[in-house]
């Protein structure tokens, strides 16, 4: 049967009619092949305008309509809904933009009218071969996976769980808590980090909807939004947490001592250990890398002393398979280490510390029980130099970006130092002070005014040890004077890097990373918590350096985004996706290479489109040498006819 197309041109008051002779257009189009009905109307988008369209569709049994009006971004949905009301598929309604792309940009009425005709004809040619499509529906597994158990992951997990959805929280270390649990106090309120963090950790461990998998890593992931299948490797801790009574006998007999990660090497721990007293899950872990050996058992002392027989040397790694509908990635950050940053004597001089080490020094539960003492001689440092932007904002040698939180935590460190060592002097070398945030600027001012912290604008050129002092050479660029400080301790505000291993995970998840290795958001402004992969969201410092409130806010945001998916029984996806003609496809795989969404794969030598993942960009279509791929309703056939119509016009 011939197509029965209706054509409507909107005057848009004088917006269109002022430059385009709409009567002439409508008359001209009336004789165009397939046009059964052609009319002009003053405001097509108005209720009477839409009614006219609906009436015409019903009366003249139209199966397609083209409305020449404003940009489709404005009223495409309006008219498509109206078309559906009239009983035709919404994809049988197309918009010809004769306002923004014609009447508003031209003056010559004759030429603008001709152009409006060409635009209309070309859109009619598109409509002529439009398929009727229904949104693609996808069932949803109504559970979520959160990767990373720092504050962001915890927040996301709790928000999701409290919304009623099951959450699998995967943490690679033996305890959740991340970096926040290492901190002493938090800016700008100086409340105790552990005090506000532990209740959340406990809540996670007690929450009936949260399945906590610590000492575990995501190994493999397949599927797509709403239907991910995740393989998780659960590494053996060799300790049964249910039996363990936390008596700590095992650590006393363990012959091995290694640097304690939690205290960043400021203390040592045993091969069997609990990372920190408040660890969740509250249990011990046998660190296989440092244990003298299990196969064959080389030592066995810990098991010997364990009364409840909680230690099981035969524990094996487990692979767990979980099905989830949505994933939040909150893999956090690491600080620049000594491998990356050797300039300032970090790793060489004992009394040159990084920010996290200083946090541990300040912490009441830290290695010095809250006293600030030099690691080298356990004396109280009287002059401490804090250096900001170590590795940050240095495009030539290090990271080009600003690590964002250093200004604030350095101010906090200086302040905390003064609170501990009243007669001490804190110096801060800075490039700029970035203290945007609620109460932040006031906080920095307090450090300067109340705690007498000396801020020096400039870079440190050299640090070296001499006579038990660390000599810091620098320049105060404000006064232009060379500065030399004989410090007792130096604290470096190291650049923030994506957590180690985040890149591998990103590859498994097929989430893009930016050039610095942080995970890429789908849109820098409008989709800051979504990854480019549908159904996966980002939280916390994995996406970019951020402070706790920001991380928590993003985590909650990500949780809501995940709920957007999980709260639905089915997801709907635009059906204008690619399709492959398998007769023509030779399976060369070029479309697989170019697809930005990993939506195309090869099966039995033919390309296959996962319609759920496909966004319909059509790059496969232009890449395919055999014209086997095409995007529904923007097929090469349609574009070919549009080209002809726009040139014949």
């Amino acid at each position: 049967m011939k197509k029965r197309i209706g054509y409507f041109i909107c005057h848009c008051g004088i917006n269109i009619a002022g430059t385009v002779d709409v009567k002439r257009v409508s008359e001209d189009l009336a004789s165009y092949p397939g046009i059964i009905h052609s009319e002009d109307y003053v405001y097509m988008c108005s209720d009477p305008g839409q009614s006219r369209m609906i009436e015409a569709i019903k009366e003249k049994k139209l199966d397609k309509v083209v409305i020449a009006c404003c940009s489709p971004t404005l009223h495409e949905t309006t008219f498509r809904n109206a078309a559906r009301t009239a009983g035709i598929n919404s994809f049988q309604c197309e918009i010809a933009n004769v306002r923004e792309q014609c009447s508003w940009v031209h003056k010559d009425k004759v030429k603008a009218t001709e152009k409006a005709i060409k635009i209309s004809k070309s859109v009619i040619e598109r409509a002529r071969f439009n398929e009727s499509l229904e949104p693609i529906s996808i069932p949803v597994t109504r559970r979520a996976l959160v990767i990373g158990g720092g504050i962001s992951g915890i927040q996301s997990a709790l928000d999701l769980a409290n919304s009623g959805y099951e959450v699998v929280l995967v943490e690679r270390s033996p305890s959740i808590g991340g970096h926040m649990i290492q901190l002493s106090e938090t800016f700008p309120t100086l409340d105790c980090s552990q005090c506000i963090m532990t209740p959340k950790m406990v809540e996670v461990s007690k929450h009936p909807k949260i399945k906590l998998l610590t000492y575990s890593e995501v190994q493999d992931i397949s599927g797509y939004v709403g239907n991910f299948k995740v393989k998780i490797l659960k590494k053996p801790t060799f300790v049964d947490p249910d039996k363990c009574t936390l008596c700590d006998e095992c650590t006393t007999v363990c012959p091995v001592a290694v640097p304690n990660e939690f205290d960043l090497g400021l203390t040592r721990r045993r091969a069997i250990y609990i990372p920190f007293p408040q660890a969740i899950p509250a249990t011990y872990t046998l660190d296989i890398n440092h244990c003298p050996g299990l196969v064959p058992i080389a030592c066995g002392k810990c098991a010997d002393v364990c009364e409840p027989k909680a230690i099981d040397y035969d524990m094996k790694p487990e692979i767990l398979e979980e099905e989830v509908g949505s994933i939040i990635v909150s893999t956090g950050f690491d600080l620049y280490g000594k491998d990356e940053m050797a300039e300032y004597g970090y790793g060489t001089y004992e009394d040159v510390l990084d920010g996290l080490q200083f946090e541990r020094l300040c912490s009441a539960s830290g290695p010095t029980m809250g006293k600030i003492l030099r690691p080298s001689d356990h004396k109280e440092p009287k002059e401490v130099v804090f250096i900001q932007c170590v590795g940050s904002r240095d495009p030539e040698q290090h990271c080009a970006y600003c690590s964002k939180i250093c200004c604030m935590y350095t101010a906090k460190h200086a302040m905390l130092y003064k609170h501990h060592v009243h007669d001490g002097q804190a110096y801060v070398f800075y490039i700029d002070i970035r203290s945007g945030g609620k109460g932040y600027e006031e906080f920095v001012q307090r450090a300067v005014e109340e705690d007498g912290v000396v801020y020096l604008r400039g870079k440190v050129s050299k640090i070296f040890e001499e006579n038990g002092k660390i000599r810091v050479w620098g320049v105060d660029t404000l006064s232009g004077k060379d500065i030399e400080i004989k410090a007792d301790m130096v604290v470096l505000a190291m650049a923030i890097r994506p957590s180690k291993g985040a890149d591998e995970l990103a590859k498994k998840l097929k989430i893009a990373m930016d050039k610095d290795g942080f995970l890429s958001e789908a849109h820098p402004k409008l989709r800051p918590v979504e990854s480019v992969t549908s159904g996966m969201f980002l939280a916390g410092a994995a996406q970019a350096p951020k402070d706790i409130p920001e991380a928590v806010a993003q985590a909650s945001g990500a949780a809501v985004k995940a709920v957007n998916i999980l709260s639905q029984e089915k997801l709907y996806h635009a059906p204008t996706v690619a399709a492959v003609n398998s007769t023509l496809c030779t399976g060369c795989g070029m479309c697989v290479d170019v697809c930005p969404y990993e939506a195309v794969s090869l099966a039995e030598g033919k390309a296959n489109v996962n319609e759920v993942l496909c966004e319909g960009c059509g790059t496969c279509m232009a890449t395919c040498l055999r014209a086997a791929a095409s995007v529904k309703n923007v097929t090469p056939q349609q574009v070919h006819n549009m080209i002809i119509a726009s040139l014949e016009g």
Partner: protein
Amino acid sequence: MVTLEELKDNCRQILKEGKVKYIIGYKRKNGQYMTVPAFLDRIEEVDHLVWDPSCIYNLVRYLRDEKMRKEKEKEPDTRPVGVIVKGCDSRAVNILIQENYITRDDVYIIGVSCEKSGIVDEKKLTKKFAGKDIRKLDFAGNGKIQVTCGTKNSVVPAEEILADRCIECTIPTPIVFDVLFGEKTDREVPDPFKTIKELESFDTTRKWEFWKEEMDKCIRCYACRSVCPMCYCDECVADSISLAVKPDTTAEEKAHKIRWVEKSPVISENFNYHLIRAMHLAGRCVDCGECDRVCPVDIPLRYLNRKMEKESLDHFGYTAGMEPEKPTLVSCFREDDPEEFIL
């Protein structure tokens, strides 16, 4: 240098062992010095095998026939097919592998090195030895070719009679092979894109006059795409002929195939056909030059593909058929790909 006897022995051996289904090689054309493709499935046929500077065919093209044959058979013999390849031909095999058209196991690649010379252009040869009774061509080493006329041998610098493509060839040794005969060498070419640069230096009008005259000659016999190992599509996009039709192909699908190019051999259609082909060969053409050779009206088709080859290299550092495990030229990008021309 390639020893023909060794090559033959290897072929006999793999046939004897049943390692290959058959071998695609070269044999003499009916008592003449030029060769034709040979399909050897019996050991005794290997006696006729030839390798000399007349072996111009890119035999990789026949892997397509083999694949089609296999697809038709109910219980196909899945042993590999032996194929004799030169440097350029081997890159064509690589592309077929890169594009999943064949697997590495489908072929037993018998590489032969062109070393410092290459394959002779029959037209140049007959011009140079006009009126002489050419009997035989041989590689004479050191970039020379021995031409036997009657009973007289003359050794000439290869460049004088080489096919154009061979003159500009920098990869005379197979990139991929199961067994290689002859020496692995490169070929120093002062400017492999000299001809293209010359054409580029023409002004717009002169370029157009040049190509218009060439395209006007095209009779659309499609020998160019028929001989091309890369043109393995069942149905060419340029003139969809509904050849790729299955019982479930709908009438609409057949009816609405786009005719980018009409059958009429007029300039606009000829241009469209050859432009589409050039685009489709960008990053895939290995400059085996076969399209150029087979053209019955002597359109220098190679130039179009060679131009694309040049741009692929200049802009994107890409050479076709070198790394089959990597994406193709147009299915990858670098963020810093040049874009001076973009407004």
